[in-house]
């Protein structure tokens, strides 16, 4: 989608410039109102430092900031092989050069989002509610949609907007607080002639401080809803199976479970509007087009190419969607048959995945209960809550023939065929999957090699 990529690049540049100007004005007005002309210069300087910090945060750790707010945990390939395979397939189909990192959010609401500041530093996060509701084709459709966002650079622009929004709000709150605490006393000591100008500037500063968050929000939601349609079209092209995404969107919107954490700042980045389940769906500030509309367009497609999506879109909305340059080479493509589905992952399996991602030790009791021991559990035994028997928490033992000195080799003996977790001598929990076949594993915290038998 060349037009969308160019438009996003342009919008990013405009956003950065607008931010610089707005921050400078805000800092100048605030500084002047607080401490006169010197204050204005200081205010601009402070605002520029804030902008610099913003950009640094955006370029280096934007996704970790936003993921932290969602309590997301990184997944390894072993934890969720099917998900990784699906993402791999979509990476091949879309031609994305780098594999995005995958995060799991332990939340019953089904949803997914993609964030990242650069194409090679992107992340896709899914909720556990999504993993146990969708089959393989639907999951592929959702991941294809997120890949579409990554390719069109929507994700980079949205992440930039989210970081800027956060810092604008923080800065205006700081100014507001400083003003209400006692900046006014200093301005009275200036000459009487400048008193009226001072008052006007004070009002300007106040207005700015109130308007800044509202302006930032408007800027945010004014991002076109068209990008969701374009991502849908990309997904249909990558998967060659628009029905997958259509039924996934239906499942997600019918679930009607709101997300358990505050997502106002990141709402535009989800695949389906997460605020809709809380009641706010179609309005001027809606971040996504209505899901029923998207499903209708996808289901009325006669083929799987961009040209087919464009035709379906025109029929449903009477307007153009994809630009002509992208459509130029798009010949009609056939829809593939639905793939054979294995069973959908159960809720218990998804919960186990979430536990593993959070680093819990899984201890199996003979009465059938699987006990999840949190990381940092100090003792060597734990009591089963169902039958009362005392179970040992699996830890490594020092290898025979050598004393337990730091740096000496450690040994762990496997007790069963499935997932196993045990504690290293440094306290960190390590999990090994059923498919793990190597003789050694390295602890990530202390770096020691542990022999597995």
């Amino acid at each position, binding site marked *: 989608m060349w037009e969308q990529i160019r438009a996003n690049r342009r919008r990013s540049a405009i956003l950065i410039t607008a931010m610089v100007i707005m921050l400078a004005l805000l800092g100048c007005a605030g500084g002047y109102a607080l401490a006169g002309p010197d204050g204005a210069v200081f205010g601009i300087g402070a605002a520029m430092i804030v902008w610099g910090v913003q950009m640094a945060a955006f370029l280096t750790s934007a996704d970790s900031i936003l993921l932290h707010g969602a309590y997301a945990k990184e997944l390894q390939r072993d934890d969720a092989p099917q998900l990784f*395979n699906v993402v*791999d*397939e979509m990476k*091949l189909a879309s*031609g994305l050069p780098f594999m995005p990192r995958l995060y799991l959010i332990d939340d019953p609401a089904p949803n997914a989002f993609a964030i990242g500041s650069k194409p090679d530093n992107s992340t896709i996060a899914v909720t556990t509610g999504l993993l146990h509701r969708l089959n393989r084709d639907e999951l592929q459709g959702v991941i294809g949609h997120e890949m579409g966002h990554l390719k069109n650079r929507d994700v980079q622009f949205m992440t930039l907007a989210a970081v800027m929004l956060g810092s604008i709000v923080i800065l205006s709150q700081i100014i507001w607080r400083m003003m209400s605490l006692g900046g006014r006393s200093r301005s009275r000591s200036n000459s009487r002639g400048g008193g009226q100008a001072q008052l006007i500037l004070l009002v300007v500063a106040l207005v700015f401080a109130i308007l800044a968050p509202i302006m930032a929000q408007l800027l945010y939601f004014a991002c076109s809803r068209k990008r969701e349609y374009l991502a849908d079209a990309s997904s249909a*092209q990558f998967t060659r199976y628009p029905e997958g995404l259509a039924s996934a969107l239906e499942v997600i919107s019918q679930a009607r479970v709101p997300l358990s954490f505050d997502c106002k700042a990141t709402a535009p980045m989800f695949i389906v509007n997460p605020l809709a389940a809380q009641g706010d769906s179609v309005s001027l500030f809606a971040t996504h087009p209505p899901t029923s509309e998207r499903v209708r367009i996808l289901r009325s497609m006669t083929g799987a190419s961009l040209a087919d999506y464009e035709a379906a879109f025109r029929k449903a909305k009477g307007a153009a969607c994809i630009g002509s340059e992208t459509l130029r*080479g798009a010949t009609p493509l056939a829809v593939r048959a639905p793939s054979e589905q294995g069973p959908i992952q159960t809720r218990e399996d998804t919960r186990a995945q979430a536990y593993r991602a959070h680093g819990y030790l899984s201890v199996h009791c003979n009465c059938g209960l699987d006990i999840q021991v949190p990381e940092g559990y100090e003792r060597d035994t734990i009591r089963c809550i169902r039958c009362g028997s005392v179970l040992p928490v699996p830890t490594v033992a020092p290898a025979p023939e050598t004393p337990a000195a730091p740096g000496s080799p450690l040994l762990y003996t496997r007790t069963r065929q*499935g997932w196993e977790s045990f504690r290293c001598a440094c306290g960190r929990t390590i999990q090994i999957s*059923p*498919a793990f076949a190597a003789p050694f594993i390295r602890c990530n915290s202390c770096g020691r090699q542990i022999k597995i038998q």
Partner: protein
Amino acid sequence: MIGIILLVLVGVALVLIVWIVGAYNGLVRLRNQLENAWAQIDVQLKRRHDLIPNLVETVKGYAAHERGTLEAVIQARNMAVAAKGVAERAQAENVLTGALKSLFAVAEAYPDLKANQNFMSLQEELTSTENKVAFSRQFYNDSVMTYNTQIEVFPKNIIANMFGFGRREFFEVKAEAEREAPQVKF
């Protein structure tokens, strides 16, 4: 007067050069993407070949007397590894896909095998590898389509002809085996 004309000419020449460089680089990028996609197909096919021995061993543990199917799979795999040339490889890969399908159909009758963790993860890996082969072919064809369009569209086709960017072929699977409907035996 002459100075102004000269300046304008120099300006136009500069713009033209910048455009030519941009167009050439764009075509080079597309061509490299194409060749990378072609290499990807090889990577995925090789991955499939590597997964098969493990699968056969797992199935042998539970269904040792299904000798015929297992041997067909191994044979098909060895032929696919040894095949050379695009048409022969496409043919061999299709035969292998057919053999794998019959192996999985056979495995349906052994509930112990189906529940085995190893078998389940191998089945997922193989399904995924089949999908990846299909998607890498798909991406190759999409890249070929974009590339061919770019070198034929009016302003850029001059650059393409000047620097020798040729049209590329699609990866078509012309094997007859693809068009056979699977036989249902009673």
